[in-house]
């Protein structure tokens, strides 16, 4: 059951997955090849900066891959009116668990692409002794970020269905209202900022998306 669902999901998402895997592989190499002639290898600070640019690129690709696979996966069922999925002899919870876990498995491909590209990129430069390449850590974090992005969109799509866009708009509107409230309501600013900080900083629920993403660091 799992294997066949994995294959189905792969067939449905393979174009996007191949694209993200290729981009994740190429991004570290391209950035390095473009940036190195300009900054040279002399400055540790500049190498760290390049590592940060690579890290940010990988972060963006991972999040996009997670969102795409979740959105596309739901679209596969939506296209046939969810009838087939609902007619199979399996609980909805189990069906969702299988669908989510196969997607998480497939999202390893862009992470592997990022790891391979980052490893190759780091291997091409002689880093000063004070600096290290973190290809494995970067790829691992990319995988976590793509899983988290997938989980958010998967939950939104499967819970809200056709109203997903409305719910998404409502969430954005609510976030904007909160930002406005930080300025308009006396005393609210501290609470809202603390809540925001909890959400986006490690080990908060969205900590994987934020903070420092880098390939090269001390």
């Amino acid at each position, binding site marked *: 059951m799992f294997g066949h669902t994995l294959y189905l999901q792969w067939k449905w998402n393979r174009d996007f997955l191949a694209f993200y895997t290729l981009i994740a592989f190429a991004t570290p190499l391209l950035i390095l090849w473009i940036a190195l002639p300009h900054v040279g290898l002399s400055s540790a600070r500049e190498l760290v900066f390049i590592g940060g640019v690579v890290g940010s690129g990988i972060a963006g690709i991972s999040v996009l891959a997670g969102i795409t696979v979740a959105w596309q996966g739901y679209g596969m069922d939506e296209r046939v009116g969810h009838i087939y999925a609902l007619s199979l*002899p399996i609980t909805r919870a189990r069906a969702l668990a299988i669908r989510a876990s196969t997607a998480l498995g497939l999202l390893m491909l862009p992470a592997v692409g990022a790891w391979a590209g980052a490893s190759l990129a780091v291997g091409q430069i002689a880093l000063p002794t004070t600096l290290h390449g973190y290809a494995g850590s970067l790829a691992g974090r990319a995988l976590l970020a793509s899983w988290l992005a997938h989980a958010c969109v998967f939950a939104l799509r499967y819970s809200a269905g056709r109203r997903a866009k409305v719910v998404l708009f409502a969430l954005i509107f609510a976030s904007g209202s909160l930002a406005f409230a930080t300025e308009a309501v006396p005393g609210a600013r501290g609470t809202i900022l603390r809540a925001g900080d909890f959400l986006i900083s490690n080990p908060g629920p969205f900590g994987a998306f934020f903070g420092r993403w880098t390939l090269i660091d001390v």
Partner: protein
Amino acid sequence: MSHAITIDALSYRAGRHFAIRDLRMRVPNGSVYGFLGPNGSGKTTTIRLILGMLAPADGTITVLGHDMPRGAHHALARVGYVPERLHLYPVLTVAETMRYHASFYASWDAAEAERLRRAFDLRGEQPVGRLSKGEAGKLMMLLALSVRPELLVLDEPTDGLDPVVRRDVLAALLEYVSAHGATVLVSSHLVHEQERVCDWIGVMDGGRLVAEMPMHAFRSGIKRLRIAGAPAQTAPAPFGILARRAGAGREEEWVVRDWRDDMTSWFASSEAALREVVDLDLEESFVETLRAARDAGGRAA
């Protein structure tokens, strides 16, 4: 008599204008139950409720002994389902779809599936998204039959198929039913097709089941009578009157149900003369039943 499907006091609302109200339905075990009704009458919604795809607002549904939708995953393992439109993933090929489907059913009969694939002339490498309507219908029937179901639920299975494909699909269905004694619930608005295969009939209209009876009662019990000097009061009649219309001269035309030949004496006792008893075919019976239900609904409103 035990029942494969039992529905009691079922209510469901879909949008502002359509609702299923207080539905009671019994599909006997081993029967081929024709679920008739015009488009938009609620057949597909009822089928989706039966299969646990939709949750009722009120009432109970039992399928093969399992309460729906709570026990849907148990019941669906013993059910073959053919929906009205292609519901399979277009990205898979025929062979991949068969393997995917098989992975969910312990009762999957691979040899039978392969036999049907050959009989239906389906190529394993054909993408589902590129199948013709006839090929898609055959593939859905193949999947439904290969799980060796105790209950087959078919929603307009032959709608839009050409006569050759329709014959193939129905032949495979009847072959399976006669070999395994499975129960079949088959919805359709093609009345003549139901007449050939069904032994029970349920007629749905406007979200209500307006008639449910054995096919022989539906076919032989509904008559058109030509009556001279018809009585104004009909309450003590031993048959049900579906419709009364003015005929030629002083004659009236009645459409009645539950008719038996020994009932002719009732007219003599009420000083009316029964001129003619006309047999109705299934389609006429179906139309008259619907008309009567709509008239009764209009009067109630």
